[in-house]
């Protein structure tokens, strides 16, 4: 019920290509879906987030697509750059008293120069 399933575990994309990472959740009570980006030796940092009443959110080269009926959401990185190489985590949150963040297992993205 509380799981967030993320795929793929690792991804290699050519520079300039589109990187796509997918996540699925089970608990329909989740009401906030962020993506975090983590570089080696650093803690994760918020990249972009979406609420379930919106089907898409775009910030620069990063886009979240959200499919409420399928309980799936994905991160698209357009024109991928070597500097985008990092580990990406999707997450889901119940925006109640707990504000507990449930993370996916992460995707290690490598952009080839």
């Amino acid at each position, binding site marked *: 019920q509380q799981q967030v399933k*993320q795929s793929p575990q690792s991804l290699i994309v050519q520079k300039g290509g589109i990187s796509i990472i997918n996540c699925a959740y089970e608990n329909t009570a989740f009401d906030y879906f*962020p993506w975090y980006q983590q570089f080696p030796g*650093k803690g994760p940092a918020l990249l972009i987030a979406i609420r379930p009443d919106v089907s898409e959110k775009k910030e620069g080269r990063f886009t979240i697509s959200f499919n409420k009926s399928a309980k799936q959401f994905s991160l698209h990185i357009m024109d991928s750059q070597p500097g985008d190489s990092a580990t990406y985590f999707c997450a889901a949150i119940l925006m109640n008293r707990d504000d507990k963040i449930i993370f996916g297992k992460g995707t290690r993205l490598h952009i080839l120069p």
Partner: protein
Amino acid sequence: DVKVTQSSRYLVKRTGEKVFLECVQDMDHENMFWYRQDPGLGLRLIYFSYDVKMKEKGDIPEGYSVSREKKERFSLILESASTNQTSMYLCASSLWGTGNFEAFFGQGTRLTVV
């Protein structure tokens, strides 16, 4: 600039030792979290706290305890360290009930138990 500071970047402890991991945030956040990060397993929640002296178990609390005596400080305690607790530990904090929810993470403590 928001900041979450973990007291150590690297720690090496012996099996059976009592270990304290300290985390301090300077943003007056209500929520604080402790996660451990392992390859292939992602970020798993150990404990979280939404107020001083309040704590709730996460997904993997066994072998750990926490303390939050002041709003800015959240400590993770390994009562008797074991080798399977070798991991990267990440502390985070967030405001409660905000419209644009964001958790801020520290840089992590890499703990090795020998």
